[in-house]
C-alpha cells in the first residue's frame, strides 16, 4: 500500500469514528438512564457514570408492567407477517415470472405502481372494514393482510431473482415430474435466498417498530405490543419519585436488542440480497 493510501485510510477511519461517536451518544444515554433511579436521570450536568446500577428497573419491566406479554405479542405479529409475506409474495412473484398470460407484464407494471400508494389513503376504510367484521380490538387486522401479498416491493425483488433461473433448469425439473409447488420450493426459491433474508429481516423489524396500526387496532391490554407498551409508559405520569423514565429507557433498550443483533449478524447477507440484476423497466 502506498503511503498516500494509508494516510487516506487513516483519515477515513477518523471521520468514521467521529460520526460513529455522535451517532452512538443518544443510545449510550438511553442505556445509562435505564439503570439509574428517577432522580438522577435528569441532572445538570449529566451523570455519565451512574453511581449505582439500578438493574431492578429491568426487573420491574416484567414484574410490574408485563413487558414479556408485550414482547410475545409483538413476536407473534412479526412471525405471522413474515410467514404471510413470504408465502404470498413468492406465489405472486412466481406467477409474474413464469406464468403465461398475454397481459401479464402489464399487470405487473400495475403492481409496481401500487408501490407508490401511501398507506394513509386506505387506512380509514380499512378501519371501518375491520370494525364491521368484528376484528377491531383483536390482533387480526395486524397480520391477516400480510397473507395477501400486500408488498409490491418484495414481489418485485423476488420476481427479478426468479427470472435469473435458466430455463433449462425449469424444463428439466418439469420433465422430472415436479409440479409447480415443488419447483418453487426446491428450485426457484433457493435462488432468491438473499431476498428472503432481506424480507425476513425488514418485515420483522418493520412490524417490531410499527406504531400507527397498532395504536388504532389494539385496545385490550393483553394484546399490547411493545410500541403500545412503551407509549403507555411514556404517557404514564405520577410523582417524580415514582417516575417511569428509567423503566421506559429499560424497555427501549430491551426493544432495541433484537434490532442490534439481527443487523450486526445479518448485514453481510443483506448486502448480497440487494444486488440488482436488472433494475431497468
Amino acid at each position: 500500500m502506498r503511503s498516500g493510501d494509508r494516510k487516506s485510510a487513516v483519515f477515513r477511519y477518523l471521520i468514521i469514528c467521529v460520526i460513529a461517536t455522535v451517532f452512538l451518544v443518544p443510545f449510550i444515554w438511553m442505556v445509562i438512564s435505564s439503570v439509574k433511579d428517577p432522580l438522577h436521570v435528569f441532572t445538570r450536568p449529566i451523570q455519565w457514570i451512574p453511581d449505582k446500577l439500578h438493574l431492578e428497573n429491568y426487573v420491574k419491566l416484567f414484574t410490574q408492567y408485563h413487558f414479556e406479554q408485550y414482547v410475545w405479542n409483538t413476536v407473534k405479529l412479526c412471525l405471522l407477517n413474515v410467514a404471510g409475506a413470504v408465502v404470498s409474495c413468492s406465489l405472486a412473484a412466481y406467477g409474474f415470472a413464469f406464468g403465461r398470460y398475454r397481459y401479464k407484464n402489464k399487470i405487473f407494471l400495475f403492481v409496481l405502481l401500487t408501490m407508490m400508494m401511501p398507506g394513509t389513503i386506505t387506512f380509514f376504510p380499512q378501519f371501518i372494514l375491520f370494525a364491521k367484521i368484528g376484528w377491531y380490538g383483536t390482533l387480526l387486522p395486524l397480520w391477516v393482510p400480510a397473507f395477501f401479498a400486500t408488498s409490491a416491493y418484495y414481489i418485485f425483488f423476488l420476481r427479478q431473482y426468479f427470472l435469473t433461473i435458466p430455463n433449462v433448469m425449469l424444463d428439466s425439473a418439469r420433465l422430472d415430474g415436479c409440479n409447480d409447488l415443488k419447483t418453487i420450493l426446491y428450485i426457484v426459491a433457493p435462488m432468491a435466498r438473499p431476498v428472503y433474508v432481506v424480507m425476513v429481516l425488514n418485515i420483522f423489524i418493520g412490524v417490531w417498530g410499527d406504531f400507527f396500526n397498532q395504536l388504532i387496532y389494539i385496545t385490550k391490554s393483553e394484546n399490547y405490543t411493545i410500541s403500545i407498551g412503551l407509549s403507555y409508559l411514556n404517557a404514564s405520569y405520577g410523582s417524580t419519585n415514582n417516575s417511569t423514565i428509567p423503566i421506559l429507557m429499560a424497555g427501549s433498550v430491551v426493544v432495541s436488542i433484537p434490532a442490534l443483533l439481527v443487523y450486526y449478524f445479518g448485514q453481510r447477507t443483506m448486502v448480497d440480497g440487494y444486488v440488482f440484476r436488472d433494475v431497468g423497466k
Partner: protein
Amino acid sequence: MRKRIISSLFIMSLAAGLVLTGCGGKESGDVDEAKADATTAGTVPHDEVEGEIVFTAWGSDAELETDREVLDAFQKEYPNVKVKFEPINDDYLTKVETMMLAGEAPDVIYGHPKYFQKWASQDLLLDMQPYFDNNEQFMDDSVYATNLYDAFKYEDKMVATVNGADTFLLFYNQDLFDEAGVPYPTEDWTWSDFLAACDKLTIDKDGDGETDQYAITAGKGHEQIEAYMAAFGGQLYDDVNDPSEVQVNSELNQEALQMWYDLINKYGYAPDAEGTEVVTGGFDGGQIAMDVDGVYQCVYRSGVDFNMGLAALPMEDVNSHYVSLMAGYCIPKDTKYPEAAWALASFMQEKAGQEILASTGLITTVDKEVAESDAVINMEGAPDNHILRVTSLDNAVNVDAKLTNWQETVDSVWQPAIDKLYNGDLTVKETLEKIQSGLEEMLESGR
C-alpha cells in the same frame, strides 16, 4: 375473456364498496338499546346482577391501584359480575371514542363532565335518571353533595355517577418554608406576601447562577391557569354551568395571567413548563417549594419525605374562589349489561366505594360524610390542613364549562393561545383578547 374478467372484477369491487358504505353509521333499531325500565332500574338484588363488563380509566400507578381496590370490593358485593379493567393512559379520550366508533365501547367509562357532555349530545350515553330516581340515597342531599350533580346532567337527565370534586389548592413544603424563615401561607395572605415568600424561596444554592430551588410551579395546563384566575376573582363565563356570556377578557384575569407569566419570566420564581415536567425532584423531590395542583395529588404525595401543607393562593378579591375538577362514570347506551354496568358505576358512588377512593386522598368524595371523615382527613401522610379540600368546595367553580364542545374549545382556542403567550409571541392582553373571541365563537357554534 380479458374484458370480462376485468369488468367482473370492477363490478365486484364497486358492489363491495357500496355494500360497505351503505353500512356506515348506526341504523336505529339495529342494536338493542338499553332502555331502562323506569320502575325497576337499579333495583335488582346484588347477587342476582350478572354480566361481563369492561371498565376503563386513566391514572398513575397509585391511582390505578386505588381503582383496583375498589374493584375488589365491588367483586365481593356483586359476585356474578365480571369486570375487565382496561387502564388507558395514552390519549384517553381518542382511544375511548375510537372504541365507540368501532362498536366496541367499554361498559363503564371514567371521565370528566366535559366528556359526558360531548357524548350525551351525540346520544351515546345511557340515561341514568331512572336509576338515580330509584335510589333514595343518591338523591339525599344530607348524604351527598347533590349540588355537584348539575355538571353531570344533560338536558336535565343524569348521564353519569359522580365520584367527587377535587379543588386546585396550593401544596407547600413546610420544611423549605422553615429553612427560609418564611411564615406559612394563611387564609388572608396577600399577593405581596406571596411574592415576598417566593423571593425567599427561590434559591441558588451553590452560587453557579442556576436556580436550584424554585418557589413555585407554573404549568401551562388550563386548570392551573384557571386556578390563578379564580384566585384573583376572575371568571371565564357568567355561569360556567350554563354559559351565555364570555367574561374571560377582564381586568382581574389580566392580572392573574400576568402574575402567572411573571412568575416564570419576570421573577424567575417558577421554572418553565419543561423544567416543571421533568423529573428531577420537582415539588415531590423537595426542589420546588409550592405547587398549585389538584388535591388528588395527595394520593402519592403522602409518601414524600417532608412536611407538607395545603393552602390557597392569595384571595384578595371578594369574588375570589377555587376551581374544581370533577369526575364520574358513564355508561354507553348500547351496553350489553346495563344492570351490571350500573352496579359498578353506582358502586363508585356508594359508601363502600367512596371510602376506598377517598382513603388514599385521591378524591374528595361526593359522599359528604366520607369526605370529611377522620379516616380521610387524618389519613397517613395527609398534609396539614387537609380539611381544606372539603371546605374549599363551598366556594369552588367547575374548571370545565358545561358545553358540549368544551374539550374542542380548550384544544383549539385556549391552549394554542396560552402556548403563544408562553413563547412570548403574544402579550397577556392579546392572549386574553384572542381567547375571548375564540370562546365566543365556540359558544355560538356549540349551541
